[in-house]
């Protein structure tokens, strides 16, 4: 069995996102915002415009005031001062309005539009790859709650636009004092540009620090988790983990501090250059004022504008930084959308599922390789699963049983070959309707953070709150006693993190089995090691009922039941047994046929277990199990 290798690089499709895609995204977000809240959206343009006007108006008013005072013109001075006071007030009030309206708008678009869309994409994508690869997982973790940040990036971009606009107007204003001051435009570009360089150093460092930060978070989560806490305490690993947690944190801080210092250097250089230019401009203005060509008011204007200028450059830079760091979530967001689009076009299919199976399910030279894996998990599987039959899948761990089960559930697309349902290729069937006719319990079944009843009820959403049906499902999997013991019966909360009751491993498995019993008329029942953690009577009960159900369905939907099990006591009753080895189908037949194969794989595995239950019992010794190919851990690639 091979380790699931990482490909080394994150993924083949992580080209840097092109700038035009940001623009398209913002245009789209703007349209969404407009549809969601036209008034609030309009305000995001009106308010910054008014704020810029207030800043510029304030500077002009100050000039008027100072000049009027010097002229001794009381009326003009009072009017100017009133204007300056109003402008200052407007700045404060508008600032508050800006943050409130933006808060509401961004929140609403994020919660009502963007996040649901991301969640829908994540949860309705046909395949599983985006969940099973931990590098993809990583992106999902970034993007799953990022609506706020993504929408914010639109308004940050808008903020950059307004900052630049404001900057230009202010410089033009300075130009009215003296055209030479227009050169300040060049000087204002310097800190913008330098700052940008510093910020990209910070963003790069943040990316590099992501690994130690993730490690730090992982160790912190382990230290505070009661389940992990058991093992950590017994192993006395607490101190060592704490040490590593601190070390990971320090490593991240070191990386990021260096970038912070570099950025500070750039920023300082930029501003010093700007101030040099600005100082020269002031000398010019003062000189002009002293020569009588200008006024003291001009000086006040120049200085006020210069201060405001610095503010707009700061604001511009801050918004640019917001936009740049939003790339952290926007890139995985766009990746997710591309991934979803690519998947959706790849897996189409619109044919309805048959109401009942006539012939069964046929696998025709089916092969599958996990992305990034060194060898195929399944190769060249051809077999017919007759309608109405119970099929058992056996094989050593890692032989491909679970993979085959997932292929039947259309959770993966075969790389080679086809799966036919009554002659119709599976990829031509509409995924949703096909799945609505499947009932499944997977090896790593889901545990939902909610009440027991809902944990079962999700197996048939339309009857999520049909307590009778749920109770029937519970009875069907022999879990009535379990429910009776729960403090609030069916309504017991199972989310331990929020104060619910924790179930034992086997109790969870029964819950998952009850979930699978909810669907009324499945065409295909998939049970992947459904009783691995169950006690003997429950296991027997489950299998007996399953057999009975499947026999009964022969008259109805004629369903195929596929059971993966390591317990041969339950496999023997199957109509068809398939033995997988290294991803290949090596034996197929009934129990009688297969035990009769001399030296056969099924026969060997069966013998190991049968002898273990035989009267004498086979004692595990250092000699090992014997039989063909004792080394089952490795798969040639």
């Amino acid at each position, binding site marked *: 069995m091979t380790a699931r290798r990482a490909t080394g690089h994150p993924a083949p499709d992580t080209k840097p996102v092109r700038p035009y895609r940001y623009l398209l995204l913002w245009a789209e977000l703007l349209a969404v915002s407009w549809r969601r809240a036209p008034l609030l959206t309009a305000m995001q343009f009106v308010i910054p415009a008014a704020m810029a006007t207030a800043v510029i108006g304030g500077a002009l008013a100050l000039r008027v005031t100072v000049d009027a005072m010097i002229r001794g013109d009381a009326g003009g001075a009072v009017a100017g001062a009133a204007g300056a006071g109003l402008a200052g007030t407007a700045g*404060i009030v508008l600032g508050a309005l800006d943050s409130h309206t933006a808060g509401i708008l961004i929140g609403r678009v994020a919660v009502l539009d963007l996040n649901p869309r991301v969640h829908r994409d994540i949860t309705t994508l046909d395949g599983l790859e985006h969940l099973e690869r*931990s590098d993809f997982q990583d992106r999902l973790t970034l993007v799953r709650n990022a609506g706020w940040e993504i929408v914010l990036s639109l308004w940050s971009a808008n903020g950059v636009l307004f900052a630049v606009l404001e900057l230009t107007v202010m410089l033009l204003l300075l130009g009215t004092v003296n055209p030479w001051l227009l050169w300040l435009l060049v000087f204002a570009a310097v800190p913008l540009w330098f700052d940008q360089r510093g910020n990209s150093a910070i963003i790069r460092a943040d990316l590099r620090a992501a690994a130690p930060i993730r490690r730090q978070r992982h160790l912190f989560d382990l230290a505070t988790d009661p389940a992990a806490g058991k093992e950590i305490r017994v192993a006395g690993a607490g101190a060592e983990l704490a040490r590593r947690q601190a070390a990971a944190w320090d490593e991240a801080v070191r990386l990021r501090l260096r970038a912070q210092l570099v950025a500070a250097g750039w920023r300082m250089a930029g501003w010093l250059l700007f101030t040099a230019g600005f100082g020269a401009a002031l000398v010019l203005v003062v000189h002009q004022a002293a020569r009588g060509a200008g006024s003291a008011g001009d000086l006040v204007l120049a200085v006020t504008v210069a201060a405001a200028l610095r503010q707009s450059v700061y604001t511009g830079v801050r918004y640019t930084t917001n936009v740049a760091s939003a790339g952290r979530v926007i890139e995985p967001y766009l990746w997710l959308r591309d991934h979803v689009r690519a998947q959706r076009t790849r897996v189409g299919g619109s044919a309805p599922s048959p109401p009942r199976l006539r012939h069964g399910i046929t696998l025709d030279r089916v092969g599958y390789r996990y992305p990034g894996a060194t060898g195929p998990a399944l190769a060249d599987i051809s077999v017919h699963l007759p309608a109405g039959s119970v099929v058992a899948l056996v094989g050593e761990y890692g032989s491909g049983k679970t993979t085959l089960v997932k292929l039947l559930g259309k959770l993966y697309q075969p790389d080679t070959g086809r799966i036919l349902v009554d002659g119709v290729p599976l990829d031509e069937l509409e995924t949703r309707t096909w799945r609505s006719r499947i009932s499944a319990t997977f090896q790593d079944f889901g545990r939902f953070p909610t009440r027991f009843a809902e944990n079962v009820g999700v197996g048939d959403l339309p009857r999520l709150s049909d307590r009778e049906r749920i109770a029937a499902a519970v009875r069907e999997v022999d879990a009535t006693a379990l429910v009776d013991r729960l403090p609030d019966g069916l309504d017991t909360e199972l989310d331990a993190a929020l104060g619910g009751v924790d179930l034992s491993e086997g109790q969870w498995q029964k819950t998952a089995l009850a979930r699978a019993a909810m669907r009324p008329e499945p065409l295909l029942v998939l049970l992947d090691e459904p009783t691995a953690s169950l006690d003997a009577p429950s296991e027997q009960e489950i299998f007996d009922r399953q057999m009975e159900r499947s026999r009964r369905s022969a008259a109805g939907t004629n369903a195929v039941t596929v059971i993966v099990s390591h317990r041969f006591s339950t496999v023997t009753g199957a109509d068809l047994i398939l033995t997988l080895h290294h991803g290949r189908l090596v034996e197929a037949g009934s129990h009688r046929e297969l035990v009769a194969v001399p030296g056969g794989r099924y026969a060997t595995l069966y013998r190991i277990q049968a002898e273990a239950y035989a009267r004498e019992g086979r004692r595990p010794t250092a000699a090992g199990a014997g039989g063909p190919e004792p080394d089952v851990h490795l798969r040639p690639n």
Partner: protein
Amino acid sequence: MAILGDVRLLAVALRAARAPLTVALALLLVLGALLPPAGAVAMAHLVGRIQSAVPADAALSAVALPLLVFVLVLVLGHVVDTAVAPLAFLATARVDGAHRARVAGLAAAGSTIAPLEDPQVRALIRAARADPENWTEQTPGAGAVAGLRLAGNLVGVAGGCLVLARYAGWLVPALLLPALLNGVLRQRDAARGIAVWRAGTLDGARGQRWQDVATSPAEGKDIRIYGLGAWLTARIQRHALAMEAPVWALLARTIPREAGQLLLVGVPLVAGYTVVAAGGAGAPVGSDRVVAATAVLVSGVAVFQALGWTEDLRVAVAAVGCLRATVDLASRLPTPDQGGASRPAAGTGPDGAARVRRVGPPLVRFEGVSFGYPGARRPVLDRLDLEIRPGELLAVVGLNGAGKSTLIKLLAGLYEPDEGRVTADGVDIAVLGAAAWRSRLAIVFQDFVRYHLPARDNVVLGRGDHPPDPVALDAAAADAGLEPVLARLPAGWDTPLARTVAGGVDLSGGQWQQVVLARAHYAVRMGAELLVLDEPTAHLDVRTEFEVFSRLAGNRGGASVVLISHRLSTVRHADRIVLLDGGRITENGDHDELVARRGRYAELFAIQARRFATGGRG
């Protein structure tokens, strides 16, 4: 007074940034806050000089000094601003690092896990963990630095007032009082906002849990087969709305109130400015009044801005929430010292282990042990008596939920019995001390830990309180049959076991089980004498299972083994088998004895063996 407490919390948190850094940062922030008033003064003098220089010619030299001062103030302002950023970053990082270490330390300190399972403690840990998941959460580091900034701003206000006082004393109260009032009103709104968002934290946490579900590969399969995508999306949204909608409503209600600022800010500002300007205009040419008026006009607004509601305040307040949760948490969890105190010298450190080894496997006794989970209807264990004899292989069997895993947790002292006691060689394990007792145990739990760390660490953390021992490591790998898995790892022992880590790989469930078995064998090699295996092979095939137990038989040395399994074919070879039923041990003996007794065990065994006995079908 509550405010004083909050300030103290932030100040205490700031200690982790260490004095030199804090002082440097504070000085810079104060300097930065004083620069705008200083600039206003320099500018006023500049205007005054120009005014008096007109229409004389040699103006430039007359204004050179104030001009220089003014430019210097600008330069300083930039220098301070840029220097603050990295210092603030470092201070934040130090405070947060120390805080997270403290919270993790608090959680890890207690010797039992019962407090960690308390829902209130879990909520507090969530609130105190300083790993913001949404905009309502802030870290103590960010809060402490924001607090420093706020203090700096106050100094700035004082500086502004000084300027005002110098030129127009009456303006100080005229501007300061409404500014303070305005500030108080803004804070009140803000406090209301904070209360509203705090009320939503439970929904926030629930939404987060459902998002975990949406991105988990395990639930992912159920979500697809049962078509839960849209339902789940709606569910997440419901929690998000429950958390956010009240905040939006509150913000919307705040908007009209902002108009009130027009009065509180606008009236005094406009009035003050016009009076000052009129005075300036009425003054004779060359008088100081113009200088004064200019200074006032330039620094007046700043007073209102500094006293209003700022982002810094929001950050500081949110961070205080996190710190309060930490204080609360600390009072509910045992302090790290208590955990350490129960740790006697023997049994810790390598020499301790050596001493323990000489003792040999313990005789463990459960004496009338009762235990129930909080809130459960009936106890899981009910006056249970059980003996684990030195060197034996004891199997524990029982139905699902019988309490087998619970029994193991009690054995390791992870819960305290409600009644009765667990002894080792006659001594209550509570008296032995958790660390000393646990250094003699190695346990494979049903839900073992998967460290996102290199394979080597995943094994040696089985005995985390000893320096890694490479010889024992290799021996453990051999004991557990891990070598074939290792050979496949791209960087062998150094391969991280998570694909999120550079160069890492994901392992399958079966491979993980092998790694964890190696972890347990490592602990045995390092001196543990009681090995506990809770369903170690549930997902392994029969052959691998058989090999695991063959190796165990060969490699356990003198250690006692407790095995929990539903696969009775492996259980039957145990030296002794006990059946746990109804919270007690109801059957006890070796396989043959129990079968001969025709009790419950015999029944269970028969159920599994029946089909083999009938040779297949049936």
